[in-house]
């Protein structure tokens, strides 16, 4: 009897240990949901006065006038989207190239140091990117790069409108460039880990069939990893949308919506960073938080699109994750 009792107690305590551990881990996982919900809720509550005052027009209004109390997010949204797009256009091919080089092409002795160098780029605090951008990059852009681009493309019929404006070295293009430099190591490190999981047998099989190295990469490695590749780009985009310090110093901070990428602009995150401490008056602060809410929702939408794309790709590949 006693032994059976002992066995029963031991079994109970075993279940108790499992129950507790599972509950604790589940609570931590659910905490993430609670956290995001709480942040979103906090934003909505603080932005409510502005939402009531402006409604949906807030998203289309370009004017940002603290004196008159008229606020609109259009310039900030435009700047956020355009600078992030520029960043991705540059960063996507470059990070792919870097990851491919490091995992498939580089000789062994090169992999460690170059890999460390790429990670070092990710280690630099974002505020340094901002300072370096302001003091070093923008003069260089203003003197060499922007005039060259303007002369080469400025007079083209449709595309030319992108490059108008005096070459000041600051603006959406500079912000996009600095962002891309920040995002490249971020995406590259995810891609490197990804490419390292491609089974060697697949690669060798490809060689066995007589493919060149590039054909092996483009026809075996990349399709194998395409789900993760898209995922990494979306994470990079999310990072670019929210980056504050690196952008604030080089974007020119003008609340205007201009088709030229050499003109100054602003992003939601940099508007928040610049004006939140100083803002006095309920409507001003609340409009800034309305901006923050817009960015939060924008990130949500971008990531949902990414997930949908990933699910479609996984479904096509026949997998389930």
């Amino acid at each position, binding site marked *: 009897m006693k032994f059976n009792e002992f066995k029963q107690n031991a079994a109970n305590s075993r279940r108790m240990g499992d129950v507790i551990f599972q509950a604790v881990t589940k609570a931590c996982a659910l905490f993430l949901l609670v956290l995001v919900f709480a942040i979103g809720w906090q934003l909505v509550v603080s932005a409510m006065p502005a939402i009531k005052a402006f409604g949906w027009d807030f998203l289309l209004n370009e004017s940002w006038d603290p004196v008159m109390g008229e606020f609109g997010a259009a310039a900030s949204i435009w700047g956020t989207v355009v600078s992030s797009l520029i960043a991705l256009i540059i960063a996507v091919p470059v990070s792919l190239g870097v990851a491919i080089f490091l995992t498939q092409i580089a000789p062994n002795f090169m992999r460690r140091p170059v890999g460390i160098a790429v990670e070092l780029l990710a280690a630099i605090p974002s505020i340094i990117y901002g300072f370096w951008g302001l003091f070093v990059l923008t003069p260089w852009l*203003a003197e060499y790069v922007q005039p060259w681009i303007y002369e080469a493309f400025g007079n083209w019929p449709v595309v030319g409108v992108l490059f108008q404006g005096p070459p000041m070295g600051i603006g959406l293009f500079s912000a996009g460039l600095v962002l891309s430099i920040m995002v490249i190591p971020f995406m590259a490190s995810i891609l490197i880990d990804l490419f390292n999981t491609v089974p060697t047998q697949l690669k060798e099989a490809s060689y066995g069939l007589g493919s060149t190295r590039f054909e092996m990469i483009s026809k075996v490695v990349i399709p194998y990893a395409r789900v993760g590749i898209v995922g990494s780009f979306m994470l990079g985009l999310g990072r670019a949308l929210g980056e504050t310090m690196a952008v604030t110093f080089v974007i020119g901070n003008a609340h205007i919506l201009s088709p030229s990428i050499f003109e100054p602009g602003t992003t939601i995150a940099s508007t928040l960073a610049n004006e*939140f*401490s*100083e803002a*006095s008056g309920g409507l001003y602060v609340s409009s800034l938080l309305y901006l923050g809410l817009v960015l939060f929702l924008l990130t949500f939408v971008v990531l949902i699109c990414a997930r949908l794309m990933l699910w479609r790709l996984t479904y096509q590949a026949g997998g389930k994750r």
Partner: protein
Amino acid sequence: MKMQKLLVASLFCVGAQLASAQQVNGAGSSFIFPVLSKWAGTYQQETKEQINYQSIGSGGGIRQIIQGTVDFAATDAPLTAQELKENNLVQFPVIVGGVIPTHNIKGIKPNELRLDGETLAQVFAAKITFWDDARIKTLNPGLALPHKAITVVHRADGSGSTWMLTNYLSKVSNDWAKEIGSDKSVKWPKGVGAKGNEGVANYIKRIDGSIGYVELAYVLHNNMSSVSLKNAAGNFVSPTLDNLKAAAGNADWAGTEGMAVVLTNQPGATSWPITGATFGLMRLKNTADVNAKIKTFFSWSWRQGAQQAVDLAYVPLPLNVVEKIESNWKSQ
């Protein structure tokens, strides 16, 4: 053994917390940050009292003092007597400084370019777009002005300097007052926004034909070309410490409620038109000894720190104003 080490470490941390002197915290205007940190550093060496001030912007300082998260605040734009009463605050001027328009026109030396209030307003409002515009030429008959486009450089972050400048422009130009107005952050019709005084100085240095506005310290440290302005008395004056002092000297500190004197466009032959004071704010609700510490610090600084302020390109308050402030404190 590990347990013991952990225990000792935590005791050390607790001990350090108990041992640190009860610090006084302030926040607000970035304009006053250098001189306050200088005074606080010397004050701590002499009295061991720690007065910690951080710059988060005047608006931020006002918000924080109203919410009670800091012990005192500093703001470039003074609060009205009504606002002071509503929030139970005491206001007093701390130091005087100025905002200086600076330009980057090749070949024109500092203080050579002369502008008056109306023209300056039109330049900043992008109504005058080239440097060789007739309106600028009439003010500068002997100067060779190039046909260069004017790029306006303003502050991207909310700033007391912007407030001071736009306050002055609103006074001297009806158009500006109507169309743009005065605040720490305004809707600039054109131009680029730079972060902080340093950002503005940086942009001005690099953009040919630009004009912007910075504090005096930045003009001196970066060797920038300042503009001579026509003051209320009709004279063209350069931005020197003496001219700032002249503007402050004529002010009616005692007569204004809450001592909220705005020093832009002051009378006086040599007064610099864009002068302003930075104001300190204290809560009446603070515990008595916190306020006492703040008052002692400022009384000490006004007297012992005057030269340090001048070295950093600020104008210290004249002694009669200091005494007026202290007598106000006694009665509150």
